[in-house]
């Protein structure tokens, strides 16, 4: 391409416009070439996208800061490698149940929805799989029951939202109330003890020095990552959440996919129910209380946009681990739950602020769209 054109002089079109041309140096008009092309950054983890990866680095920074606080307040403990290793495992174990729920939640939120019923589904699945009748089928029956209950309840959510056109917030809020009610009804408000050693061993055992619960978390996170970043299901999730109309006009069955997302969340709840039942060796209607808030908070901290269309599994995992680390930090320092909750609240706000900071240009764009002058 060449565009060495001579500088023209202006010929005034209207008499009141005196002829004058700002100097444009012909040399300056030399080809700028294809400088614009192909300087794009490669994403750090392909599929997670550059921005997501950058934000995840920020989360790792937060985690490092928390560990530093721990090391400063308890230097004696952090000086002992065995204790540190065991503490890491303790944190991961603490994070495991909510972590599994958060993976499902992340999909729902990326898909443009929200699931407030996850805690209730965990409780219902837990109670269902520990009834005397279910336990008579053994561990396999219990696992099947928990997962089937989770998926079915999730499907009900999904059908109400995508075909019944209910707002996700309302539909899953109703499900929260109803599922806890049903769990209380089934359990007669009693704590149901699990007599299955197989189930109870899941939380008690370690393999190669690592608790089985941590393996389950790892497997679910890995599966979630692959599903989101490497499959057509994940691609549809991002499309449906990012621009439902565009997804529909591209031939994607938005309603069916939305329904499947809630079923997926229910599946994660079913798995979490088994883990939690195993940890407590029992189940009751009040278990997994407020897990929905923990899961949503972890996903948001991890960079999932509440409006849908963007989010990462790795970010959500980091969000859960950060929360677990805070809990752990307060426990080893003997501080109260109340103080811990206040710090958690602060962290949520701080994380969202940091995200907005990173999306400065984006928010500026929004600001321009919403408010054209000072309100």
């Amino acid at each position, binding site marked *: *391409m060449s565009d060495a*054109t001579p500088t023209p002089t202006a010929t005034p079109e209207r008499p009141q*416009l005196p002829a004058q041309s*700002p100097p444009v140096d012909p040399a300056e008009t030399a080809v700028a070439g294809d400088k614009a092309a192909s300087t794009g950054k490669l994403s750090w983890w392909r599929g997670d*996208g550059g921005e997501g990866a950058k934000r995840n680095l920020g989360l790792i920074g937060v985690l490092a800061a928390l560990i530093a606080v721990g090391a400063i307040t308890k230097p004696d403990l952090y000086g002992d490698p065995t204790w540190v290793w065991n503490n890491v495992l303790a944190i991961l174990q603490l994070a495991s149940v909510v972590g599994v729920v958060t993976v499902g939640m992340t999909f729902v939120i990326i898909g443009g929805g929200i699931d407030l019923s996850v805690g209730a589904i965990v409780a219902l699945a837990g109670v269902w799989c520990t009834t005397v009748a279910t336990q008579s089928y053994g561990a396999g029956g219990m696992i099947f029951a928990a997962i089937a209950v989770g998926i079915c309840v999730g499907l009900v959510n999904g059908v109400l939202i995508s075909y019944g056109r209910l707002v996700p917030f309302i539909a899953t809020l109703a499900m929260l109330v109803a599922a806890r009610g049903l769990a209380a009804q089934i359990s007669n408000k009693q704590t149901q003890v699990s007599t299955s050693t197989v189930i109870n061993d899941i939380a008690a055992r370690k393999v190669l020095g690592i608790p089985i619960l941590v393996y389950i978390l790892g497997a679910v996170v890995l599966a979630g990552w692959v599903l989101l970043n490497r499959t057509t299901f994940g691609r549809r999730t991002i499309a449906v959440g990012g621009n439902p109309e565009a997804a529909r006009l591209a031939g994607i069955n938005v309603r069916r996919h939305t329904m499947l997302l809630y079923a997926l969340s229910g599946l994660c709840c079913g798995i979490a129910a088994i883990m939690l039942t195993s940890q407590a060796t029992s189940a009751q209607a009040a278990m997994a209380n407020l897990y929905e808030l923990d899961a949503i908070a972890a996903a948001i901290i991890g960079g999932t946009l509440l409006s849908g269309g963007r989010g990462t599994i790795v970010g959500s995992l980091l969000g859960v681990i950060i929360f677990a680390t805070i809990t752990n930090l307060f426990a080893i320092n003997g501080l109260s739950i109340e103080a811990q909750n206040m710090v958690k609240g602060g962290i949520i706000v701080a994380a969202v602020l940091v995200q907005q900071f990173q999306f400065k240009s984006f928010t500026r764009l929004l600001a321009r769209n919403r408010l054209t002058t000072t309100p």
Partner: protein
Amino acid sequence: MAQPEEIAATGPADAGTQAPLVEAPADTVAGEVVLRLTDLVKTFPGVRALDGVQLEVRAGEVHCLLGQNGAGKSTLIKVLAGVHQPDSGQVEWRGEPITFANPQAAMRAGIATIYQELDLVDDLSVGENAFLGHEPRRMGFVRRGHMARRTRQILGRLGHGEIPPGRMVRALPAAGKQIVSMARALSHEARLIIMDEPSAVLAHDEVGNLFRIIRELTAQGIAVIYISHRLEEIREIGDRVTVLKDGRTTAANLPARDTPTRDLVSRMTGRSIEYVFPERPAAGPAGAELLQVDGLTRSGEFADVSLDVRAGEIVGIAGLVGSGRSELLETIYGARPAEAGTVRMAGKALRAGSVGAAVRAGMGMAPEERKSQALLLGEPIYRNVTLATFGRYARFGFTNAGAEEAEADRIAESLELRPRDVRRPVRTLSGGNQQKVVVGRWLLGDTKLLLLDEPTRGVDIGARAELYQVIRGLAARGVGVLLVSSEVPEVLGLADRVLVMREGRVIREAPAGELDENTVLDLVMAGSLMEGAPA
């Protein structure tokens, strides 16, 4: 938070008095240089969007900006509007160097902007949008009646008194929204009004209206910066032209009327492009029957439309915005359920209201509004290109990003997408390049019938010629094309057969060769914007 005293001081005239459309500030001097840019540079990560821009705008002139897609026109006006801050260079506003920290500052200084991408709030009314952020107030309360009156007045002057100020913007067709964003720009007291491709969504008669307004504005000494890819418009309304290429000024202050087209094009593109449509193939044997539409009806939108498209044929629909053409396309595609009538592909009836069925039968549609209907702005280009086809590259449900990128790259190449890197988010592309992504999506795979709604909206001259070639090439391979465009020459030049729509009915059908522009325009005229809008 607000500055009520300032609004009271400079706000529009009070109710009752007959305010002019826009009141030029009293100290406006015709011919005075109001804006001078020197060596303006603005970079985004990986792109120098502006690389030394010179621009001089005088009071009372229409200064046109010309340049290819991605040349930096929109970036330039966003710097002027305070949306972006320049990296270096000088902005001189009425003789004084200035930087606008935010859009509010630019507006207070008297620069009003109509952006390329509509920036209205869908869930607010027309009036609320027009006065968004500077609502007329008394003691902190919005004066709704006054606002509605002012809005009606402005809309009336814009030739669209029929748009009710209380109507939700969501319910307006695309062109109606464009009118509202114009009304917004005119609701300010401005010395400079910037219009970034305002005509892209407007039909022929609307453009005439727009030009009348522009002449009224300039007669009052208000300066206008006008961006368009249509040279005819620039010749008609422009006084001087500045040409941008790759972020630089390659020619400044050319006379808009007398500069030969050849010169303008070569300064924009660095080469000469013959702005021609690809030749129609000699009439061979008619292709197989592909699409058959019978008596399709949706009340309030269109009625009893029957048409057919054969394999390898390009059928164009001409009609005003609001004549029901976009709705017709969406209904054929299943995006809107038909009330009566049938759509058949290769003889088989399609389920009404099912996009999935249409896509499975081999249809693809590039919708009218790219931002709301077609793009995932935060996702990479290649994923947007393959949004409808990623399943075809997948095996056992696992996506194949490598193959997708390669295909997207091929499309990017054939449509001259710039920058070429398909991993960038679509959000960072210029408007015309985003449009290429929307159309490019359906050039992949085995689409048998392409429904194109304003496919060249915002696309520059060079890329447009490429796009025409590509579409003609598809037809040569047996793909049927149904094309809707506001530009009559495009319909006549590209299509084999033309349907003319007015008020939801097909009023004429003829081979393109038997019609000329004036005949079509005569047929098409009549009807207004609001008739296509859902009540």
